[in-house]
């Protein structure tokens, strides 16, 4: 039985390791090391980005049926591998991105979690520009993840990306969030 003090330190260490993982993940994606990123995707992944709705009396509503992404391991892998093709014009040249991850919260006692899994929420702000232009756009989202501890790191077992935009100001979404 840990004392309160030890328990606090344990949870701080967990929070720190989760944050370090999210920063590392952001770095992989910003550097377009997509295959290295995909090494951290669990083979039972559910990767979703529902369509945000705009309603008169609700601050945050999401479509029950409509989405941008609803990927399993195979379809997410295909999306990663597509960018290996010299014909994936959306990312030739690659978009310039910078992911800012903040407001991280970690919970270990969610009933839906299995052993070694963590419920992690974070805010994500992505700066994105493309081509020979000063034009840029932002994606802003709350991410709700289930992270699973592995020997030396984490893998993403579930991710829901709750985008803040209803009408997108972008050519496409050719990056992972």
């Amino acid at each position, binding site marked *: 039985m840990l004392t309160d003090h030890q328990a606090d330190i344990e949870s701080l260490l967990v929070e720190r390791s989760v944050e370090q993982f999210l920063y590392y993940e952001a770095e992989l994606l910003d550097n377009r090391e997509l295959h290295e990123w995909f090494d951290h995707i669990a083979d039972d992944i559910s990767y979703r980005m529902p369509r945000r709705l705009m309603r008169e009396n609700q601050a945050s509503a999401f479509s029950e*049926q*409509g989405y941008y992404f609803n*990927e399993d391991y*195979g379809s997410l892998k295909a999306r990663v591998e597509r960018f290996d093709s010299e014909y*994936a014009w959306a990312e030739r040249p690659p978009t310039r991105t910078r992911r800012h991850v903040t407001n991280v919260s970690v919970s270990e006692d969610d009933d839906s979690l299995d052993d070694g899994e963590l419920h992690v929420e974070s805010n994500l702000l992505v700066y994105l520009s493309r081509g020979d232009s000063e*034009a840029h756009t932002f994606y802003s989202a709350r991410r709700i993840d289930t992270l699973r501890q592995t020997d030396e790191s984490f893998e993403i077992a579930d991710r829901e990306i709750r985008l803040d935009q209803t009408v*997108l100001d*972008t*050519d496409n*979404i050719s990056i992972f969030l």
Partner: protein
Amino acid sequence: MAAGDIPNSTAQTLQAARESLDEGLFPLEFFHDEGLHDLEMERIFAQSWVFIGHESEIPEPGDYAQRYIGDDTFIFVRDESGEINLLFDSCRHRGTEVCRAEQGNTSHFRCPYHGWTYKNNGEAAGIPQKSKAFKDLDREEYGLAHVPRLETYEGLVFASLAEEGPSLDEWLGDFKWYFDVHMKLPEGGMEVIGEPHRWVVDANWKTIADNFNGDSYHTAWAHGSVVDLELGGEETVGHAGTGESLDRHIHCDGHTTSMRGFEGEDVFLTYPDEIVEDLFTKDDLSEGQWELAKQALSFTGAIFPNFGFLHFGDTTDDPEKDVAPFFTIRKWRPIGPDQMELWSWGLAPKNAPEAFKQRMYKMYTSNFGPTGNFEQDDVPIWKSITEAADGQFAQSQNLQLNYQMGLEWMSEMDIDDEWLGPGFAYTENLEEGGMRLFHEQWYEMLAGNDRTDATGSPINVTEDR
């Protein structure tokens, strides 16, 4: 409206462009021109039938969605009696917009400014302190304004800002024969899944119109990544003009559809056998329409001026999974000479099993919409055309884009004499007649003429079939 209303210089440029269109040429500068944009809004978008939405998006009384024609905002709403209305979103008192959300359900729309209230059929219901403040005002004259004309074809609702002109039925003409195949093949018809994807892109609307009016030539190149990954079969997305398949470019009453298929085979857009057996019906189709559906692998097409569709088989989101079909419709709404808002809907047969509808929606988002493996690569291309058209060079050098593919001195094109539908079909998909026809209609409407005055050869084949 007479062509004389246009400034002389613009009229001359337009006339020159119309003449070069007969040579298969069209000026690059027209893809980014402020003056032309204003004319397009006035003479095309305020005169044409513009797509609003599908009835299944607002199934219950009070269901509404904000929709746009050009720069104007409307409320697409089903009233308490079940009728569909398209109301101009502006209070009759001071002009404030009264609809505050993208979608929802309400019995009334309330103006936030002074509290004027309207029923969901547009009638004025409440005017605060009316007996003192507006005692002579006739409520019946102060409802929300209805769009002049609103008509429905197979659940697809279109509106026209013009008081007069051809009916929707006349506008679509015999092209309905082709679109019927999509909407009526499954018993119970098609319905929209979820809400439309919407995104604003810095591209001129005519770039995407070109693409949907028969650009089979681009698929193997622009979408080479999909071919590389085997997410779509060679017959669906491979090079145009190479297959032994039933590849046709079909032009009918100003609208275009391109198809790929297999002559004499049972393809049905790779819908699974149980859907074909349980759901597909000849009841509302002619023998010819049924034969077309049976042999079809994919369809792309456009209805003038800003409606497009894709009904594809033989694609997947994962090379390890079975192929499945998807059906998507879209509109492109010009916002400026260099900007448009794309609206894109995924559909599925209304009476299909839920799991199959979800699979079709998944196929749609994997291929099209802002995250689609196809569409991700299209939009930056359209944007770059618009960028190239801006500036002085395109104009000063009079750069003409080439739309000559399929013209007699460029290609050996045959018209399919045995074709089973209206309009006419080229036996090859290596031709650009749909785009030329699109630009001709564009010209005729800008010049103040009827779009059916578009006459270029060999664009119009009028013989009855």
